[in-house]
């Protein structure tokens, strides 16, 4: 599947709906328009935003050629949480007057808020039209710091301060540069207790996943201005991220009651209302929160996988988490998105929040996406890797490294997990769109093309793979420890790898290009060929010989492709039609090894394995599916039966227990199977209980009746 950005997209919060100290629209000479504008401004100031909007609407209708009215109206929309309408009005203003600097500035603000890299262009246009617009420099400074480009950020701040020596955002960004580097800052005092300055510092801490520090600065902002509702809202959202729901709720409700109802506040409060539908399971080191509709089915698999991953990471990172890890699993993807960002529409699958006072991994449930599209166990390992690295580095790790390492971990322990190279990534490699290691963070924060976030995950992961391959797996831990000292990427690369960053890029790209050479070179041919082979497979009757020949060539070109219409499955089916079962099994094996996730395909493979007497491999293949969709009843029935047949009764009981937990159509049969698994373990009482449940559903169910009599006989005291 295509991963839409994994983990740690946190901190990209929709914060400061904070229009740049707007110039009010110039009053018209027409007394009615002047009065209308004055009314709009007065209503805005009094907090009657609806009234103000109507008043702006009226003067825009009365004087449609006035771009300034639209700009001002746009600023109102931006302040009141509607960037979409704001953007429309700024663009309308620019259509009337493309030399309106305030319209460009407004557009830059909205785009910067949305982490759109085009904001910089809009800010430049505003500055070209009005070089005194220091706010445009502040926007550019903010974007640079978001990209971890401290030098440019400081330079833009200086430009802003030349124009307005007291520019609070420029001062706050300067302070943020120091504070993020753990240096004392002389700039902090210059904020002079202005709440919006502290709010900006908090934003940068949160963006760098330093939630505790961010929370501290939001508190400072609130202390400076208790009515800065934006800071209250962000404080609430970030407390929530660390699992501190009580205080989070208080802050968010305070915002709501004071009519600060941005999407993040309202969505988060609504999500909190649904928490009654979740059940929390606590065990040593783990707090697991599952929705009641699937908790019993998911719990065994999640708990086991969390424990397994923690054991591996504790050893590998030589680090023990100081507090239990909280894992929250959301069946509704939009609930997960709100939990993460306060907003729906997030493409990520999982997110990690780490702090001293709390932590949480929030992720999609296997039921949150169509079966086969989501490898939940892989995501869980990815997020747990973040948790360990954030803890180990005291949240100082740079984005590319923690993401790259997490991607690396997806396949480091279990090679047939993880995501494979997608067509988007192949195109990016072909078109030389990968970023140098010193700049790769920009690909996560301000992507310049739609797929750049995905490409950056892949590239960061491959960088970690490359480091592990060339310098050894242990070097990754050494690097993590260096990042814990809050050192920049270029210094860490030089010190730890004894190589200049540019040389690292050159060697890494050479290695990657060699690895992907065949796929990149034959991509066009593969694309055409895949269509042709699928067409052959749809023909009646299909030309199986041609499918096998052409399909195998496609596999060679692009072995990682296991999505819809992939060559492995087509070739396997063609071979089966020709009666070549071993050949088909070999194809399915390749599909599975390359992380193929389609349940029907893996089940077909398992059937062939079982038929050939290889039950052990059949079990392994079906277990792979448990890491993808543990809500598949049919899978548990098959796997349970296999385990029971191979005398692995505890595993059989786990599988049949999952069937029972999934409200099966066949109640009697499911409980009977579970009873058999308990009986095989000698758990007579449990077996009897399940048998009686089966018989209650179907009293004449002969196998269950026979089992009940056997169990009664076994339970009777021997004479």
């Amino acid at each position, binding site marked *: 599947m295509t991963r839409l950005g994994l983990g740690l997209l946190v901190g990209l919060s929709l914060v400061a709906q904070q229009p740049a100290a707007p110039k009010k629209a110039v009053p018209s000479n027409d007394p009615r328009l002047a009065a209308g504008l004055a009314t709009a401004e007065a209503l805005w100031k009094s907090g009657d935003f609806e009234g103000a909007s109507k008043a702006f609407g009226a003067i825009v209708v009365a004087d449609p050629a006035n771009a300034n009215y639209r700009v001002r109206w746009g600023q109102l929309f931006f302040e009141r949480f509607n960037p979409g309408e704001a953007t429309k009005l700024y663009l309308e203003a620019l259509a009337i007057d493309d030399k309106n600097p305030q319209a460009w500035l407004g557009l830059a603000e909205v785009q910067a808020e949305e982490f759109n890299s085009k904001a910089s262009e809009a800010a430049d246009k505003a500055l070209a039209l009005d070089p005194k617009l220091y706010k445009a420099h502040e926007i550019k400074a903010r974007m640079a710091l978001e990209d971890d480009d401290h030098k440019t950020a400081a330079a833009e701040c200086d430009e802003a301060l030349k124009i307005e020596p007291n520019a609070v955002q420029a001062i706050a960004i300067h302070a943020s540069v120091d504070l993020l580097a753990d240096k004392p800052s002389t700039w902090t005092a210059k904020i002079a207790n202005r709440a919006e300055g502290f709010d900006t510092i908090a934003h940068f801490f949160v963006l760098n996943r330093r939630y505790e520090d961010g929370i501290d600065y939001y508190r400072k902002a609130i202390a400076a201005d208790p009515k800065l509702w934006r800071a209250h809202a962000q404080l609430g959202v970030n407390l929530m991220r660390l699992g501190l729901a009580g205080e989070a709720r208080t802050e968010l409700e305070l915002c709501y009651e004071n009519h600060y109802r941005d999407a993040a506040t309202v969505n988060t409060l609504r999500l909190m209302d649904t928490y009654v539908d979740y059940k929390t399971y606590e065990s040593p080191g783990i707090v697991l929160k599952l929705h009641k509709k699937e908790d019993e089915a998911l719990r065994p698999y999640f708990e086991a996988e969390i424990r397994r991953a923690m054991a591996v990471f504790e050893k590998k990172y030589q680090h023990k988490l100081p507090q239990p890890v909280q894992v929250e699993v959301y069946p509704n993807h939009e609930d997960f998105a709100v939990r993460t960002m306060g907003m729906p529409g997030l493409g990520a699958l999982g997110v990690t929040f780490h702090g001293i006072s709390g932590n949480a991994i929030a992720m999609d449930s296997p*039921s949150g*996406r*169509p*079966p086969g599209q989501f490898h939940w166990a892989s995501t869980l390992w990815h997020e747990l890797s973040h948790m360990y690295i954030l803890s180990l580095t005291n949240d100082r790790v740079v984005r590319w490294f923690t993401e790259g390492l997490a991607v690396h971990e997806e396949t480091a322990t279990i090679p047939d997990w993880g995501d494979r190279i997608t067509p988007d990534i192949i195109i990016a490699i072909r078109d030389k769109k990968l970023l140098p290691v010193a700049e790769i963070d920009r690909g996560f924060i301000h992507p310049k093309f739609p797929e750049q976030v995905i490409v950056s995950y892949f590239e960061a992961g491959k960088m970690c793979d490359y480091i592990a391959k060339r310098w050894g797996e242990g070097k990754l831990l050494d690097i993590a420890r260096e990042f814990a000292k809050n050192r920049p990427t270029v210094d860490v690369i030089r010190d730890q790898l004894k190589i200049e960053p540019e040389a690292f890029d050159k060697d890494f790209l050479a290695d990657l290009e060699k690895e992907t050479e065949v796929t990149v070179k034959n991509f066009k041919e593969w694309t055409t060929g895949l269509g042709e082979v699928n067409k052959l497979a*749809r023909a*009646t009757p299909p030309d199986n010989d041609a499918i096998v020949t052409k399909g195998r060539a496609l596999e060679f070109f692009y072995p990682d492709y296991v999505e819809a219409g992939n060559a492995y499955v087509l070739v396997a089916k063609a071979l089966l039609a020709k009666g070549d079962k071993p050949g088909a099994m070999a194809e399915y094996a390749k599909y599975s090894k390359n992380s193929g996730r389609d349940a029907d395909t893996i089940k077909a493979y398992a059937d062939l394995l079982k038929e050939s007497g290889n039950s052990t491999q059949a079990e392994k293949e079906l277990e792979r599916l448990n890491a993808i969709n543990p*809500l598949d009843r049919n899978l548990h029935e098959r796997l349970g039966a296999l385990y029971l047949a191979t005398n692995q009764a505890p595993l059989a009981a786990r599988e049949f227990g999952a069937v029972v937990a999934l409200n*099966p*159509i*066949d*109640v*009697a*049969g499911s409980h009977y199977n579970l009873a058999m698994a308990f009986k095989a373990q000698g758990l007579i009482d449990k077996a009897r209980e399940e048998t*009686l449940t089966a*018989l*209650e*559903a*179907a*009293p*004449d*169910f*002969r196998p*269950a*009746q*026979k089992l*009940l*009599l056997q169990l*009664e006989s076994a339970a009777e005291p021997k004479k």
Partner: protein
Amino acid sequence: MGGGVVMRSVQFVCRGLKGRSSQEWLPYKALLALFLLATQAQAATYFLTVAGLGGEPDYETRFNLLATDADKLLRSGGGDRVVETLKGPDATKAKLTAALTKIAGTAKIPDVFILMMIGHGTFDGTEYKFNLPGPDITGTELAALLNKIPAGRQLVVDMTSASGGVTPALKHDGRTVITATKSGSEKNATIFARYWVEALRDPSADTDKNETVTALEAYKYASTKTAAFFTEQKRLATEHSVLEDQPRAAAFPLIRYGAAAAKVTDPAKQALVAKKEDIENRIDALKYQKDLMAPEDYKRQISALLLELARTQEALEK
């Protein structure tokens, strides 16, 4: 307790009605008993499966495969049955009319008639049409043909798109109708048929484990799986199957397998048969009382009865 056969039949239905409260379906008991009494007689079951026009090669293939599977499964379904299937170019209005007319000339009042329709349907707000190669057949035309079939119990399983639109036309005493959609306005191609045919093959559809898959069991299986499909795929459900008369549907056995129909003929075991039926009735009665009883008390009593039933069955089989 009432007469053995009748009461036994009632229990059979009970077990097909899990989830329905006793009060809710008690009025059906006498009626069902009569149905099943009829089943005990030498009644034949006529099955007619029709796979309509696919329109596109994918649908054509899918519909034909489903009809072929259904045909094969029904033919091996046990009991006295007549199975006919129309598909591909044979599924014309003329051939469907001929098949129904033929059954009308053969079937008797005690017999059972089951029509299964796979394919596309349309509904214009007034009239439902089943899409066939050549002219379509309307719901009204279909009803007229069905009305000529003397079989006292009829089941129509219309699994096409817009099939909910056929229900008013098909309403008739003794006829049970299952549709894949709740109304004529659910116009997307349906997936219900896939799971209906799967129910004929999958032993887990036999939820009461009496080695018979009834229309009610198949319906529950197919409707549950259809709903799950849309949930899992994160798609808006475009079909909602309907079966208004569940107790009647429980009286249509579709597939029998194993020793389901085996009768005990040894006079020496008649007492055991009576005992078994008595226990079964007591189990049903106890289940009705479940909500009113202390859980421990219920558990103790049901466990004892289930054990007694198992022992009785074992004695019967000796």
